[in-house]
């Protein structure tokens, strides 16, 4: 674990020293939050829209922005840079546990996501959004968001390790992007058109989004929250297993 922690520390330093990689992570999701709420808030007034549970449309949209922010991790691009620059081989030539090479950056990514998610929620609170599940709900909310950040960054790292190319890694990020939008992004799942509802049902991100949304809009709804956490746990297990295999067989 020490190896993973020292590598995480390095990745955090890297993040702090590259603010230009963090600023858009916060700015773009906030931009989408403002735009989406601006466009749809009058269609879904809080006073008469049942699925908003008495809150404004911003509360419904906040989870989308949080997931978007959590999907902007830079771990994979830093990794490609490291591979291209030769430092990755330098690391591999040490007795560092292969798992730590992957996990180190993911720990850092998780910590960054905790901070970014907290900032987003706090900004939401400042604009009248309430976390209906209270302080424990707030904690579950940011931990679940960080969990998604880790999983997403992990899959991007796998692509970085396989392709060893910044361009390919960037493009692959765009392929993952639709996952964030084939979800009940603007309305609950039961209000989607039938094909979209089917797509959203098969999309694991839907369950993470619904868990986040339930934490904001309702008192603890454990089944929905549990499902969100289960999706993250399963995806994380798959991602870690594949990552470790890829880094072990890296030639």
């Amino acid at each position, binding site marked *: 674990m020490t190896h993973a922690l*020292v590598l995480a520390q390095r990745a955090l330093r*890297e993040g702090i*020293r590259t603010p230009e990689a963090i600023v858009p992570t916060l700015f773009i999701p906030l931009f989408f939050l403002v735009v989406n709420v601006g466009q749809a808030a009058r269609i879904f007034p809080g006073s008469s829209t049942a699925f908003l549970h008495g809150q404004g449309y911003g509360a419904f949209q906040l989870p989308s922005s949080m997931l978007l922010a959590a999907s902007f991790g830079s771990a994979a691009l830093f990794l490609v840079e490291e591979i291209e620059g030769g*430092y990755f*081989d*330098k690391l591999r*030539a040490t007795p560092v546990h292969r798992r730590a090479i992957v996990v180190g950056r993911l720990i850092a990514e998780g910590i960054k996501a905790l901070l970014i998610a907290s900032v987003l929620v706090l900004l939401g609170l400042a604009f009248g959004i309430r976390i209906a599940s209270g302080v424990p709900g707030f904690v579950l909310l940011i931990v679940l968001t960080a969990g998604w950040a880790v999983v997403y960054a992990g899959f991007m790292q796998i692509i970085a390790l396989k392709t060893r190319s910044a361009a390919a890694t960037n493009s692959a990020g765009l392929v993952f992007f639709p996952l964030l939008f084939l979800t009940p992004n603007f309305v609950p799942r039961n209000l989607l058109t039938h094909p979209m509802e089917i797509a959203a049902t098969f999309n694991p991100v839907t369950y993470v989004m619904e868990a986040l949304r339930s934490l904001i809009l309702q008192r603890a709804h454990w089944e929905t929250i549990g499902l969100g956490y289960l999706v993250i746990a399963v995806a994380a297990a798959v991602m870690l297993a594949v990552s470790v295999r890829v880094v072990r067989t890296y030639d």
Partner: protein
Amino acid sequence: MGEPAAAVQAEGLVKTYRSRAGTVEAVRGVDLRVESGEIFGFLGPNGAGKSTTVKMLTTLLSITAGTGRVAGLDVAREPDAVRRRIGVALQEAGLDGRQTGRELLVLQGRLFDLSAHDASGRAEELLELVELTDAADRRIKSYSGGMKRRLDLASALVHEPEVLFLDEPTTGLDPASRVTVWDEVRRINERGTTVFLTTQYLEEADQLCDRLAIIDGGRIVREGTPSQLKTELRERLGLGRAATLDDVFLDATGRARTHVAGEVQEVKA
């Protein structure tokens, strides 16, 4: 009593890659033996298989066939144990430009399981050794090429390795920086570390190496001390002058030296 274990030993080392164009044989059965305490030079033209051989011996590439032993350990079977006994400075100093020199050395120490305190102390020692104490807290991206090479060398020494692999350690350096790196290599070797060095600079091999091997087309084509190789060539070709290592290299690799455009010399296949 058996023969003492060599610092580096390769037997029939082969590396093949599959590409869209077919199978590429980068290394085709390399046999090598480097004794403990030697500075061993590994020479060859571009694409001859030098770096591939080094990467196999340092656990960074899988071995297609044959065996590699470093510090008495099988590279394929005990990669972690090998990594604990070797230091590696690869071509194009692979460093993390966003860290400071000190942070990089401390991290390297921590990855070799030194405590935070010990890693910090070792980093300080190494920074003094490679004369980078004044630049220790600057980001590496602001270092010159020579400083990066010296830092890379220092990072390969954090755990006092038995065998140090240097892959073209002076490529791209100006003459003064090159001499500084040579001095460091000699100093490291005097402390008992075996040095396995690849280079394209024949003068470097002549100055530094106790023995050397020349690889071409994935096979070893010459092996011996620089003076043995030069004497053998002079006698074989009946040269009326002393042979140079350039002559040995050109003879071994089948290249011919021709004069092109006045004083510019080009080596042609």
